[in-house]
């Protein structure tokens, strides 16, 4: 049994080798003579590769352009409507192990600076955990908080408060 399979391996290897070498020979033999005059293909038109647009991260119309997760008042759990935002970034980060993100948690400006810092961290941590559960490496993501110190909206009204109850995904 063992002798036969060994023999079979040798035979198949030999066939493969033969095939390879013959293909190479054929390639050489059949290689067309490159001649602009006799060939109709246009070799002078240059195709543009846009290095920026290769990375879907930089597509302003792409799914990765959405990088904010909003939270309800006094809430620190990711709402269903923001699952897709997190999933899209998780997919990208799993495929790009060299990329790192910082999740920046924020709160509205009511209450103490330090307690709000801890609440903003709770939001950032919720997003960080969701990313890690989707396969993103711990080393790729850091959760930090800005608390109420860097508000995006400056008003003292519900719309402004809601805008500031937010975690942002910031690529490094």
């Amino acid at each position, binding site marked *: 049994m063992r002798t036969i399979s060994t023999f079979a391996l040798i035979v198949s290897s030999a066939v493969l080798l033969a095939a390879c070498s013959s293909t190479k020979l054929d390639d050489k033999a059949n290689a067309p003579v490159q001649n602009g005059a006799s060939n109709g293909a246009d070799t002078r038109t240059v195709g543009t590769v846009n290095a920026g647009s290769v990375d879907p991260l930089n597509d302003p119309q792409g799914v990765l352009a959405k990088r904010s997760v909003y939270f309800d008042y006094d809430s620190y759990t990711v709402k269903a409507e923001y699952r897709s935002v997190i999933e899209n970034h998780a997919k990208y980060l799993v495929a790009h192990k060299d990329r790192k993100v910082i999740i920046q948690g924020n709160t509205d400006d009511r*209450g*103490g600076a330090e*307690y709000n810092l*801890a*609440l903003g*961290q709770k939001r950032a941590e919720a997003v960080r955990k969701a990313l890690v559960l989707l396969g993103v490496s711990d080393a790729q993501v850091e959760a*930090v*908080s800005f608390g109420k110190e860097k508000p995006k909206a400056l008003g003292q009204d519900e719309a402004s408060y809601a805008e500031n109850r937010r975690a942002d995904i910031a690529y490094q």
Partner: protein
Amino acid sequence: MIKARYLTSVAATALAVAGLSFAPASQAQIRFEITGVGASQIPVAITAFPGEEAAPQQITSVVKADLARSGVFKLIDNGDALSDSSAVDYASWQKRGANALAVGSVARLADGRFDVRYRLYDTVAGAQLSALSIGAQPQLLRLTAHKIADDIYQKLTGIPGIFSTRISYVTKSGNEYRLEVADADGEGTQVALRSNEPIISPSWSPDGTKVAYVSFEMKKPVVYIQNLVTRQRSIVANFKGSNSAPAWSPDGSRLAVALTRDGLTQVYVINADGSGLRRLTNSAGIDTEPQFSPDGGSIYFTSDRSGGPQVYKVGLDGGSPQRVTFAGSYNISPRISPDGKTLAFISRRDGQFQLYALDLTNGQEIRLSDGNRDQSPSFAPNGKYIMYATESGRRGSLAVVSVDGRIKQRLTTQAGDIREPTWGPFMK
């Protein structure tokens, strides 16, 4: 002997002022404290110090402003200028309503310094209470005046004065944040740190030479210590996640901090040089805003382990934390008085964030402020006043209230948006 005489004199002053019946000298100070403004203001006359008009800083105007602001003195108007060498007619000053009299002189010395002399008399007892002679550089004349005010406060109330202490706070104008240091009256501001990112939670070292704070200059909260004189900065805590809420141990060797390196915000203790990190609290939620008790043996902190934020206390050797605040559903920013008996904190009630004081010996609570966004309380080192941040319009300013709530003042000399005050220690 001197001590005994001064205590007797304080008792005499308090009795004369408040019209109280006889009390042992040791109780006079306590009684004086609780009688409050109005009933207990000590009438004191400060005469002009001959020679002060030639100095760059008028000493007596600073002394008078300090004493008036404290709320415990009634300044007796007078147009007199008495030097420290003048003879004092006790009876006539008593007749004018002054139970104490401060006199002095200012003279320029050959080396450019000023010789400031002052004497304090108890006109009721007919005795000298104090005498000081200070050689001061011209730029230190304000400090000299504050020291005289401290001495008057101490001799007449038995409580150390805080006029020569300093405060630190954060200002914001446009995109610029500044950590500033000023005299306790808000004058003489100096910039310790300038940044384009937020600065929060400054905290004076017990020896007054350094301030620990949280800076966002690295796009995340990191805890620094800065030497105010040498400008030397060092990072105390820059772990993965957020680093915040530094609080010094009473001996200045360690800090309690809030870190998120292990998940949500928890309290840790770390040496001032950044070594020896040790986790102190262990909850599934938020534990933050640690403060050492004055004996250094335990830590007060804010925790949401029961739902909303409340103040807890835990021994530095571990053990299970004990809840300290119970009234209200949102109690944050615990600060403990130097004698360990009073807890100041911010409570949200009916949507208003206000300053409260809880007497830890009997559980009695009083509200001390009436703003709607008050925060960041900080005790004066003598434990008699609390400074806090308040908002008027959209602007932050600083306010001071006595721990009994009777004396209130606002620091209005500063321009701009001010927050996060911390009151510095007594300086040697």
